[in-house]
Every structure is written in structure tokens, then in C-alpha cells.
């Protein structure tokens, strides 16, 4: 009987050992993590990956064995994930996010932040002017739940004793329950401000303006009662962080809006993917700031009960955030970390 030799069969015979070795390495990494491999095996991995990738190219052009081609495609893809997969753990990734990515995102979105700040500031000015001229506006701007009994009917003594210098209700009540309620409230507003960025950014700006409007209304009310400085102290202790997080949420929404509205030379989705991490970093960082604000507001505000100390803390948090956002400007890594 005549012997048959197929190129594709010969090819498979000569390369199969390498594929099996790679398959074995990849399977071990998939089930127990990359730390399972010895130093030698780690060195082998990229070489085997390239060899198998070139096998795939050859097989595609000379072989008609469907199982072989599908197997090689699958193997190269699985090896690709290991070779080009992320190589940092969660602690390292979070550290990178906090040390580098979040401040960097904030710096790169400086114009969006400026726009969001202007929206809030405009709201504050309008709120002050309208409520100072006629206190009835206060009820129109501030919903019942947020006003908490405060309003045109409040007297100076009420505002001072029940709100600004209210007694501390205790650890559990203030740090756990109250902080959580505030977190939810702020997070809701933050989500809406960020999420509505996809709608072109106008709702984001309106919502930011509305937050400013409420703040302005409160400012005007306390100004009329002669408590302006005390109120600023009371609110600045957490307000700096809280307002900062809302502005960052807004900036994140505006980044999305910009990338979707003005894609430039890219397709809208590609443009969003190229710049989306900035928006996500802003929103993610803002969530952490909301956490911090809830914590400060729930506990520290009632614990520290004189105005100069409160102003100092508010100022200190402001300085802290700004210096944090300006920190780590030099890239310390060696190029892109994978």
C-alpha cells in the first residue's frame, strides 16, 4: 500500500508538543493564577505564545482540518489573555487609582469642572438674590424634606439652637444612621447629575444650578437672621467635600456629553471608549468623596461646635482636596502599566 504524507499532518506532528505545553501552562494559570508558574515557565510563556500564534497563521493557510484551526484559534486567544492580561492586584490597582488616575482625571477635566462650578455659582447667586428680596421663594426652591422645618417662619433662636449648634446625638446615631442617610441623598443627586450627562449635558447643568439655588436660598435665609458666618461654618465643614463631589459628578457627566456630542474624527462610541475612563474616574472618585462627606457631616459637624473651628476644618478639607488633585503630576511609572 502506498504511503501518504500530508503537509498539514506533518506540520501538526512537528508542532503539537509546543501547543500541548502551552495549553497545559494556560490551564494552570486559569485555574490557579499566574503565580503558579515557575520562573522558567514564565519565560517560556511568551515564546510559546508567539510560536503558537504563528502556527495558527500557517494552519489557516495550509490546513483544512476544522478541529485543528478552531483549537489553535481558541488556544491563541486564551494565551493572549494571559500574556496581555492585567498584571496588578486589586490593592495596586486601587492605589494607582487614588494616587494617579483620579487626580489626573480631575486635572484633565479642568474646563468641565470650571463649567460645572459656574453652573453652581450661578444658582447660588440667583438663589441669594431672589430669597433676599422675598423669603417666600425659599419654599419654592427647597423641598419640604430637605428644609427640615427651616423656612421663612424660622426665628434666629430656632436656627441657632436646633440646627447650627444642635447637641451631638451620639456615636451610632450620627456616624452610622445619619451619615448613611446623607450618603444616600448625596449619592442620588450625584448619580442623576452624572447619568444625565448622556443626555447632552443640559440636564446636568440644570441640576447643578438647582443645587446652587438651594444653597443660595439657605445662605440668604441665614443672612436675614444674622447668622451668615455661623451658617457658613456649619455647612463648610462637610460642604466643601460634598459640593466638590457634586461638581466632579457634573464634570464627569459633561465629559461624556462632550465626547458624545462632538466626536471629532472618531465614531461616537470609539470616542467615548477613548475618553470614558476619565469620566468613570471622576464619577468613581466622586462616590468616594460622597462617602467622606457623609462621614464628616454625620459626625464631625455636631462634635465641633464653634464657628472658627468649623471654618478652619472646612478650609483644611478644601486645601486637602486641592493639594491632592494637584499631587503626583509627574508620571512615576514606566510607560503604560498593563
Amino acid at each position, binding site marked *: *500500500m*502506498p*504511503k*501518504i504524507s*500530508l*503537509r*498539514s*499532518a506533518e506540520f501538526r506532528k512537528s508542532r*503539537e508538543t509546543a501547543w*500541548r505545553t502551552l495549553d497545559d501552562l494556560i490551564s494552570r494559570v*486559569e485555574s490557579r493564577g499566574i503565580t503558579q508558574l515557575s520562573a522558567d515557565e514564565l519565560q517560556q510563556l511568551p515564546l510559546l505564545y*508567539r510560536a503558537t*500564534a504563528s502556527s495558527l497563521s500557517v494552519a489557516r*493557510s*495550509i*490546513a*483544512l*482540518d*476544522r*478541529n485543528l*484551526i*478552531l*483549537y489553535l*484559534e*481558541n*488556544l*491563541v*486567544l486564551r494565551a*493572549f*489573555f*494571559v500574556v*496581555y*492580561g*492585567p498584571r496588578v*492586584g*486589586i490593592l*495596586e*490597582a486601587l492605589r*494607582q*487609582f487614588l494616587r494617579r488616575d483620579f487626580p489626573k482625571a480631575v486635572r484633565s477635566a479642568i474646563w468641565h469642572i470650571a463649567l460645572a462650578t459656574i453652573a453652581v455659582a450661578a444658582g447660588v447667586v440667583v438663589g441669594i438674590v431672589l430669597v433676599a428680596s422675598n423669603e417666600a421663594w425659599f419654599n419654592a426652591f427647597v423641598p419640604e424634606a430637605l428644609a427640615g422645618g427651616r423656612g421663612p417662619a424660622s426665628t434666629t433662636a430656632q436656627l441657632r439652637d436646633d440646627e447650627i449648634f444642635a447637641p451631638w446625638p451620639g456615636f*451610632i446615631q450620627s456616624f*452610622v*444612621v445619619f451619615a*448613611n442617610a446623607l450618603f*444616600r441623598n448625596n*449619592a442620588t443627586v450625584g*448619580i442623576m447629575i*452624572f*447619568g444625565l450627562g448622556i443626555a447632552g449635558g443640559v440636564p446636568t447643568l440644570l441640576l447643578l444650578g438647582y443645587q446652587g439655588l438651594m444653597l443660595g436660598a439657605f445662605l440668604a435665609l441665614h443672612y436675614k437672621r444674622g447668622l451668615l458666618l455661623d451658617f457658613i461654618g456649619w455647612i463648610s465643614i462637610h460642604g466643601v467635600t460634598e459640593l466638590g463631589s457634586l461638581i466632579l459628578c457634573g464634570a464627569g457627566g459633561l465629559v*461624556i456629553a462632550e465626547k458624545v456630542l462632538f466626536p471629532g474624527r472618531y465614531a461616537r462610541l470609539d470616542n*467615548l*471608549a477613548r475618553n*470614558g*475612563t476619565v*469620566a468613570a474616574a471622576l*464619577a*468613581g472618585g466622586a*462616590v468616594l468623596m460622597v462617602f467622606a462627606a457623609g462621614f464628616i457631616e454625620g459626625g464631625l459637624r455636631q462634635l465641633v461646635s464653634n464657628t472658627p473651628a468649623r471654618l478652619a476644618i472646612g478650609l483644611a478639607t478644601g486645601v486637602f482636596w486641592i493639594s491632592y488633585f494637584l499631587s503626583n503630576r509627574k508620571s512615576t511609572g514606566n510607560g*503604560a502599566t*498593563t
Partner: protein
Amino acid sequence: MAQRLDRINRFLDGVRRNRREIISPEGIALEVDVANNGERLTAFVIDFLFWMLATGLLYFMLALLIIERVSGAVAMTIVFFIAFLLRNLYFIHFELTSQGSTPGKRIANLRVIDRGGGPLLPGAVVARNLTREVEIFLPLGLFFSLPRVASGSDFWIAAAYLGWILMISALPFFNRDHLRAGDLIAGTMVISVPRRHLLAELVETEAKYAFTRNQLEVYGAFELQVLEELLRRPASPDTSRVREQVCSRICSKIGWTDPVPPAETAEFLKAFYTAERAHLEREQLFGHFRADKTEPPAMRR
């Protein structure tokens, strides 16, 4: 080149999947199957269960540690906080350490990849998971924290949260790559990578039957690969019945006059497969790829 297998894959595997081509940094085109919504839901539900389980366990451990009885609101808050921390750490940790797959995704054979074929960066993993927070969990938590029988403005707020969740979760149904909002923002994509195995070589080393060139020119690559699948099927009465049918069909088509006894059907088919594959691969090397029997064979030299 890679698209040549599309038709046969659809024919044999029966599933019609969305496929995308990504180019690896070495410049190799890799075809990936986009994960469908059902698979993603399965993976998410499994992860969700793991997360709830972990949250519950951690809460009970804390509750045992804290002897003092805590009120309902405080307990809820602690659960809320643990759950928040755990779910973010869970998704980010597993997607970073196991090449873009969480335990749920691994069970459903799913992976997260960069849409452009580049390396999956930690920034993208963090971004797509933090967005999940904004997408689903915060609105869901807020929805459930509202009083049960909501009236007035509370009702509309609840409706708004629910509407937001529904809108966002429907997003994967409305784009070709089944991307959720986090994928859009992070530039990632979820694909299905079921594990494949390398099966034994079917080609024989000795030719028991000899076929002429005319006989081999009846079929193309598509028919060859259907035959390959038939030969790789595990032996069963059903398989041998189909093989006999196919064998008689081939004999009549190529004009094979000698009778093939039923016991030798498999052997005959293997020999025919070997000869046909040798013929088609040789032709392919000369630049005459023949997709199926309807394509005219290459000109005789």
C-alpha cells in the same frame, strides 16, 4: 481567511453568534464570539449570589463580634456598607487576577477584553465596575430604601429609579456587541470563550483505497469538514447508520462501483477523507481554494 470557517461553524454548531475580529499586538487577527445576553445574565446572577453569600457571612461574623444589640436601622446600614465594599472589591479583584473573568463569568465561559484588542488595563477594569455602581446598585438600593407603599412624590421617585434601572439594563439589547454602559465607557467588551480540545488526527498514513482526480474533484472544503465532523462523532448505532448513508451517497456521487461492505464503511470514509483533504490542501497551496461543491474546480494543468 478566517471567515472561511464561518459557514461551516454555523452549519455544524447551529448557533448563530455575533463575531468580531480583534487584532492582537502581534498583528494576528483573532475572531471572538460576542457573549449573548443570556450568558451575561447567568454570569451576573451567579456573581450576585456569591456576593450576597459573602455579605451575609461577613455580617453574621460582625454581629457575633459586636455583643451589644444593635437596632434595625444600624444593622441595615452596616449591611449596606459591607455590601458596597464587597461587591466592588469582588468584581475588580477577580477581573484583575483571573484575566478578565469573575467566578460567575468563568462558569459561563465569559471574558472581558479590550474592544480594540489591546491589553486590558486596570483603569478600564476599575472604570467598568465603578460604573456598574452608578448603573444598577445605587438606584436599586435607593429604590428598595423607599417606603413600601409609596404615595405622592415618593411614588414618582421610585418610578424614576425603576425606569432608570430598566433603561440601563436594556442597553445591551440595543447594540450589536451587547455592551452595557460600563463597557461603553471603559472601552471593553464581553466575549464567550468556551474551551476547545485538540482531537486526534483523522488522516491515515497508508492508502487502502485509491481515488482518481476526477473523483476527488466532486467535493469542496465545506463537504470535507462536514465529513470530518461525522468521523469525529462518538461511535453509536445512530452514527454508523448515518455513516452508511453518507458512504452510499458518496459512492454514487463519485461513481465508485465496488461495493463497500458495512463493516468497512468507517475505513472507507476515512480513506476518502484523507485523499480528499490531501487533494484540496494541495490545490489550496497552489492558490485554488474551493469552498464547496458548487464552485467550479481549478483548470487542469
